[in-house]
């Protein structure tokens, strides 16, 4: 259990340090593993995760050394538009299981993942195991935000309205398991009216926010399901994976508590986020923040003016930029506004060695501290 802490597995694509001899018995434990012949006795299983973040989470569930875990996307690559090579494709074919985020995050890989799955490699989609939020398409216009101000803390939570949603049954037991009772209630209330608008506008096409990993409670929901999948489909040792899953879940629960505590001093009036990439929806939902505006790629002058207006009106002291995208428009905006700074968060990928965001847990801790420090605590 002690060997399962998130800290031993730094980000990157190298194989993890050997923790224990491989468990050859695992093959006979899992009947489904018989289908994937590549579960060789001598070689550890190969697990491919799409992003560095999911690779780190998977590595923890796989006890560090039970399987070789790699990420397809190199560190700092944008998952939305990464173009893979044939050797990426070959690596995916060799994998025993592929761990993806889903919810259309891995757009550049979509066709490839489909064809790999058709060729017989099982795919675990983390997004299937949690409640999702819809994107606020009107983020720019500010209509929603102004109308709903004051009551709309948690953005929209899709709990009640997404009946057609694939994760219907999962939602229920996710609610039981997660230690998120304090949020869930009022998220339900204000979810209603908004969700209907969205369903009409967007036809369900790519409208779900894919950035689920920025909420550790949702990650924990995926982790609970990831362990059994690794045992069944990649032939990992069931007992050890269960132990490491429990240890990691405990770590995630600690992380959640820690983030809540470190953000507690931020006064309610300051709980407003302006970001340069629309990725903090789940974070905001979990920790009672509100994403009031986003500087997306190529904002029009009218968008920028609106944004400046929103920032000034709300007295927002900082724009949160993510390492992955570069500050660009955000820093130009910050310069022109008095007293607005740029604060850097790791949201799309783990940081490099020495960045203080080498693992998922460290990354989230870094983000929470940065937000707490910037918004006043």
């Amino acid at each position, binding site marked *: 259990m002690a060997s399962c802490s998130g800290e031993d597995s730094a980000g990157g694509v190298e194989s993890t340090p050997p923790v224990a001899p491989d468990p050859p018995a695992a093959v006979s434990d899992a009947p489904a593993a018989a289908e994937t012949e590549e579960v060789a006795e001598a070689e550890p299983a190969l697990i491919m995760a799409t992003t560095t973040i999911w690779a780190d989470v998977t590595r923890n569930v796989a006890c560090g050394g039970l399987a070789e875990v790699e990420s397809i996307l190199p560190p700092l690559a944008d998952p939305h538009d990464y173009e893979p090579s044939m050797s990426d494709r070959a690596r995916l074919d060799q994998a025993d299981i592929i761990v993806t985020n889903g919810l259309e995050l891995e757009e550049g890989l979509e066709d490839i993942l489909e*064809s790999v799955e058709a060729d017989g490699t099982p795919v675990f989609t983390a997004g299937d195991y949690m409640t999702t939020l819809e994107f606020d398409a009107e983020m720019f216009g500010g209509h929603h935000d102004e109308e709903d101000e004051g009551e709309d803390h948690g953005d929209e939570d899709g709990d009640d309205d997404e009946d057609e949603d694939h994760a219907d049954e999962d939602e229920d037991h996710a609610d039981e398991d997660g230690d998120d009772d304090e949020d869930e209630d009022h998220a339900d209330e204000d979810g209603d009216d908004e969700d209907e608008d969205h369903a009409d506008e967007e036809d369900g096409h790519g409208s779900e926010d894919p950035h689920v990993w920025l909420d550790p409670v949702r990650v924990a929901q995926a982790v609970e399901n990831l362990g059994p999948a690794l045992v069944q489909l990649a032939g990992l040792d069931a007992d050890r994976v269960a132990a490491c899953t429990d240890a990691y879940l405990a770590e995630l629960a600690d992380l959640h508590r820690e983030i809540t505590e470190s953000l507690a001093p931020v006064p309610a009036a300051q709980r407003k986020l302006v970001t340069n990439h629309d990725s903090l929806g789940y974070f905001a939902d979990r920790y009672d923040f509100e994403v009031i505006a986003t500087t997306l790629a190529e904002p029009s002058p009218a968008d920028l003016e609106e944004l400046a207006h929103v920032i000034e009106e709300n007295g927002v002291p900082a724009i949160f930029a993510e390492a992955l995208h570069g500050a660009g428009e955000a820093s130009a905006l910050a310069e022109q506004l008095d007293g607005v700074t740029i604060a850097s968060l790791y949201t799309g990928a783990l940081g490099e060695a020495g960045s203080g965001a080498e693992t998922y847990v460290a990354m989230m801790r870094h983000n929470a501290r940065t937000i707490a420090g910037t918004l006043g605590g």
Partner: protein
Amino acid sequence: MDFLVNPWEWWVEPFLTNPFMRRALASALLAVLSTSIIGTWVVLRGLSFLGDALAHGVLPGIAIALVLGGNVPLGAFVAALSMVGGINLLRRHSPLPEDTAIGLLFVGMLALAVVIMSSQSGTYVGDLTGVLFGSIAGVTESDLYRQLITTAIPLGGALLFHRAFLVLTFDEMQARMLGMRPRLAHFVLLALIAVAIVSSFEVVGSLLVFALLIGPPATAAILVRRVPVLMALATVIGAITTTVGILVSYHHDTATGGTMALSTVALFMIVLTIRTLTQKVRTRLHRLGHGTSGTVRATPAG
């Protein structure tokens, strides 16, 4: 140098061991077949710029199809056709040369695609990069069947209109006198270019489609003159460069679409360089009367 030292392992084994490599190869070869044959007319008639414009002119159609959730190839085809119509209209009504009309429509279509996609900001429909670069590593069998059918259309069209295109290309005046309606033939050719582009862009990306449309025929045109021979040679050249592209991407972890396009253009440069050098050597030999092979080797070889 592995491709020389271990030719079997480098060239053949990846296709034997990986079904996805075979599918990628089949898809690339189908794309080469239609683009090389239609592309031959593009190169011979000097329509490269139009081909480029069409390859990117499909984007707003794709953008609309993505936003509305419609059929992407259909959207692309409609966009390409409306672009062909637009070029004809502009050419007839503006006093400027045709390439100006093409250029304006080209940039207009691209801008339209960007504007359509940006109107969807906040949601993730941003599949356009996938359209530009394709995803040949993710070709499925049903993709291949669909491609097989759509490849048959430009091939059949090229066969059916071969004589008309030939006369149109080499003697437009005569075509008119023979009552062959060169305008109609021209329009049919443009439509076939559109079909060839649409049938291939989904797997290889619109950037590579354009590379395949003019790269192999241009390379072949350096070497041979007769149209059927040119088409055959272009197909062979395209097959070689795409195969090399796929293999380089496999062995050296490079982006597949880009590697295929690059090897296609690189081969053109190599062939052109070799031909220029041999021509120089030949004229020098000619001037010297009968030069020895020693002087040949002394010429700078780059």
